[in-house]
């Protein structure tokens, strides 16, 4: 327990944060007072004064130290994502629910909640998360148990009122927070397997076990990747990683042989061969690969410039659930390869900005947390598009900012809020 407290004290950057806040307040007061003396020429400013002024100017530009480019990228992606989700979803909403605006109305509410959470969290001192990181893991485990009690074949979410909670979303976040905390706390011991491999195995193992029961294999894959990424960033020796990958390979092999992966395997059936079946030759596989095949049709129909915004044809009940995981297929169909590349570029910029600003964080916890949260978006984008292009089995990985879903969008925006909070400390100039 002792090292934990010590780290807390060492890493208590609240002081710094407060200092930054006070500084900026002082500067603002000073500036306000200067405004009254406008007649002063800037040219005759003292060099030292100029430096201070520039510093002050930048601080002001970034709005309380908040990383404006990152915020802008988040908002741009959110707006594009919502437009595209609406475009993709209105036919299914119209035909299946009788209301074209069914999904977009709900998504707008979720976005509003998420944005509020994001702004709130951007002011939140993320260092407070140290204390609750273990609690988060506990909460997500409890929720993962709770979701198993919901009747049905697949237990991936449960409803609270009108709102669907997907515990695996919370689990993903908890894992990142926990390992960021762990990596910053035991930064000097991470090279030992006891401090890196062991907690990794325990936390991931329990989470994965609960996800197997849901079953939610894509969740396991993402959580596994995130665990590995976080431990790797935290300083785990690469050799453990290699050993781990070998063991994982063997484990998957065994699971596959014993039939534990039957659900995933069923989904993997026809993986990469969606175009090879015909309704006549193999009706069962034709139906199994229906979604992937129609996703490919949609992507292929887009060509270079697309059919035009709103002009997708595949969304007319050909592509099932176009508002969810396969929303990007409709994006490709409507705005073409050029449009898809631009969106990917914005995603890449967001990830890049998130990682680089986090690296500038003053504390290790902020660094690891920010990089982990940013990398999660990148990983999820890659996996999602590999799924809709039939290079990965259809396992249910949503596309951040685009896919319909309350808990995932709110969680996502909350995480963006945390990164923004990290950016506030990162943007404080070195004294």
């Amino acid at each position: 327990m002792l090292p934990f407290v010590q780290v807390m004290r060492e890493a208590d950057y609240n002081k710094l944060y407060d200092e930054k806040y006070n500084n900026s307040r002082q500067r603002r007061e000073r500036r306000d007072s200067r405004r009254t003396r406008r007649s002063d020429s800037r040219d005759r400013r003292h060099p030292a004064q100029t430096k201070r002024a520039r510093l002050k100017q930048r601080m002001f530009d970034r709005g309380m130290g908040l990383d404006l480019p990152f915020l802008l990228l988040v908002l741009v992606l959110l707006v594009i994502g919502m437009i595209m989700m609406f475009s993709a979803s209105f036919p299914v909403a119209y035909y299946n629910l009788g209301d074209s605006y069914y999904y977009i109305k709900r998504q707008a509410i979720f976005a509003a909640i998420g944005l509020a959470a994001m702004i709130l969290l951007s002011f939140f001192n993320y260092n407070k998360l140290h204390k609750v990181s273990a609690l988060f893991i506990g909460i997500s485990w409890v929720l993962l148990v709770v979701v198993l009690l919901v009747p049905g074949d697949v237990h991936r979410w449960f409803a609270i009122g009108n709102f669907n909670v997907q515990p695996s979303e919370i689990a993903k976040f908890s894992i990142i927070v926990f390992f960021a905390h762990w990596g910053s706390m035991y930064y000097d011991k991470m090279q030992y397997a006891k401090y890196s491999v062991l907690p990794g195995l325990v936390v991931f193992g329990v989470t994965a076990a609960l996800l197997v029961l849901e079953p939610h294999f894509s969740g396991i894959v993402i959580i596994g990747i995130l665990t590995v990424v976080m431990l790797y960033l935290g300083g785990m020796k690469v050799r453990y990683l290699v050993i781990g990958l070998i063991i994982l390979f063997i484990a998957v092999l065994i699971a596959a042989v014993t039939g534990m992966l039957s659900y995933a395997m069923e989904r993997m059936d026809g993986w990469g061969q969606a175009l090879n079946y015909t309704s006549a030759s193999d009706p069962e596989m034709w139906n199994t690969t229906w979604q992937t095949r129609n996703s490919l049709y949609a992507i292929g129909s887009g060509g270079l410039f697309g059919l035009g915004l709103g002009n997708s044809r595949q969304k007319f009940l050909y592509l099932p659930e176009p508002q969810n995981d396969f929303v990007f297929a409709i994006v490709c169909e409507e705005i073409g390869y050029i449009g898809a590349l631009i969106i990917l570029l914005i995603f890449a910029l967001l990830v890049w900005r998130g990682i680089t600003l986090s690296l500038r964080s003053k504390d290790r916890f902020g660094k690891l947390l920010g990089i982990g949260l940013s990398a999660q978006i990148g990983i999820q984008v890659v996996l999602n598009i590999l799924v809709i292009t039939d290079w990965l089995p259809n396992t249910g990985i949503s596309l951040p900012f685009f896919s319909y879903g309350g808990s995932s969008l709110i969680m996502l925006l909350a995480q963006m809020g945390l990164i923004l909070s990290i950016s506030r400390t990162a943007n404080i100039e070195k004294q």
Partner: protein
Amino acid sequence: MADNREVRSKKGLLQQLRFRTTVIILLVLVLGFGAIALRLLYLQLVQGPELQEKAVEQQLVDTKLSAKRGTIYDATGKILAQSATVWKVVLAPAYLEKEEQREYVAENLSKILDLDYDNMLEKTKQKSYYVIVKRKIESDERDALLKFIEKLEKKYPELSNVITLFDDYRRYYPYNDLASSVIGFTGSDDQGLEGVEFQYDKYLTGTPGRIITARNANQTDMPFQYEQNVEAKDGNNINLTIDETIQSIAEKYMKQGLKANDVRNRGVCIIMDVNTGGLLACASVDGYNLNKPYDLPKSAKDKISQLPEKKRPEAESAALGAMWRNKAIADTYYPGSVFKMCTASMALNEGTVSDGSTFTCGGSVTIYDHTIHCHELGGHGTQNLFQAITNSCNPAFIAIGQSLGPKKFYKYYQAFGFSEPTGIDLPGEADDQFFNEDGSMSETDLAVASFGQNFSITPIQMITACAAVANGGKVVQPYVVQSITDVDGNVIKTTENTVKRQVISEKVSKQMCDYLERNTTQGGSNNGYIAGYRVGGKTGTSEKLTTTDGTEDYISSFCGFAPADNPRVACLVFFDTPKGPNYYGSLVSAPVFVNVMSEVLPYLEVQAEYSDDEKQYVDTVAGSYVGLSVKKAKAQAKKDGFSVVVKGDGKKVVSQIPTAASKVPSGGNIVLYTDSQSRSEKVTVPNFVGSSVSTVKSLADSNNLNVSIIGASSSSGGISTSQSVPEGKKVDAGTVINVTFGGSSVVHD
């Protein structure tokens, strides 16, 4: 020291984190994003068109709109085949969700459209939006159906799209069996199956229109209009060279000939414009009703019904095939003596014989060990070329053939167009059958070929060759379609007259026309003579080498042209297997030729020129004397050249026989009636057959009847062979009766 180490390790830690972050960035942003960017590039730009095609395939519903099939006109613009609008009933049973709805729809549809209820109910249960209920319904059924649809909409407003009527077309043939083998008919999908309908299907069909609608995966319409319409483009119209009037004349007399001579295997009459090759008529009789092409004649049905059950379908399709067959181009036959006009032309053109050459006929010739008899067993003695043609002397023509030799004979055979299809624009043209494929022939072959025996050609080839003999030696390509026009009347295609080659010189052609014309004047109607017209022609009787009813089978044919001084039309008459009292071409086919041409030539406005002798046989047109006073009428009629008989006591003429503008032999009797009672008096028709022209005329005079003399020539004298109104029938006084005369001598070739 310790502090330093800590600082260093902290710095090392930061460096490690920076390095590992770089690795993560590389993995995610470069490898990951690079992979998906490339994957999308491949799918959207390389595989894109293929995927898009598949997507479009499932998204679009293509509804066909029938195009109206083009009309077929005769040479004068009369409609021979036409499409009229009918309707196709299409049901979308997927809208029917309740059992009572299905029953209601099925019950009414089966009642209105006269369909089986259970079958109909089965159709309403299908999960489809396009089930064809009935095709080609006519307007009465449509009206009833529209009423039902209205009722249905009132009862179940959600079922407004369940029944749809699509425009469709049905083919009508106003003249039923006229020119049936030429026109052909269409199948259930409006596709041409025979004749011009088949040959020109591409032009007649038109382009079906399409309604392409985007549908969602449930096959219902999308909420917005997403429709592309391509109007149906109606088919083009076809204008035939066939003239309905000429075709009717030909078919009328062919049917008579068929009946009179008990012909077993149908007959053919082709009338061709010798200069262009266009067919003015092409009759294969008996034809069939184009509106009911699957109805066999009663005799064929009876025959089939006697067969065992198993063999019936086969026999039926064979019978249908035979009925549809265009005998004029699909059947081959031995041309017989008609071919002699070609043999003579060849030899004259080669100069191996000349006008003055003489031939001796002793009744038979022996070639190697084959003895070939002349039809005149006593022999024709010594004859010149013209006489050999008139006598149709086989030994003479064997000598002519021998003078040519097999090689030259075959060369001309090819040049006349016998060795290849004529290329007429009709389906199913048969190939000739020559002795050997390579055109070689033995001396015996040559001998029999010289008079048209033992090789087979089609009737269309024969008339094309005859046209070449008549028209100055040009082998033309026969055709039946003059032009194709689109819906707006623009000409799309016109048949150009194709002269394939010059087979004989104009001089030889002139010489042959002269011979053949003299042949008809010598032989009278038995050789095709028609008073007032200069006709050339040749009879033919060929052995079929088969037997029916225990007697040998023959083909009787006549091929001629007119006017002989400047030929315009050729006509081939051909009866396959006559089993009547006669089988000679001169007695079976020549009279039909004469009858046909006697009507066709005036129709074609060929100027008739009569010799003084012939004038007595010539018909003139009766004037109108009705309404005149008896005195005036008498004077007028006498002035017109008629003898007048007045019946009744009235002062004014109330009616006349023959009626005004009808044809009356010059010097014939006009009966003028002055009251209506006298009209009831009738005259009994006497027997005109077996008498000379003068006897017939006086007999007619004494009975107050008129006779129109057909086929008698001044030089041949002739005996009457038939009369158009049978003996003993009661007719009005003044009625014109056609009496046909045969020649005094009959050529039995």
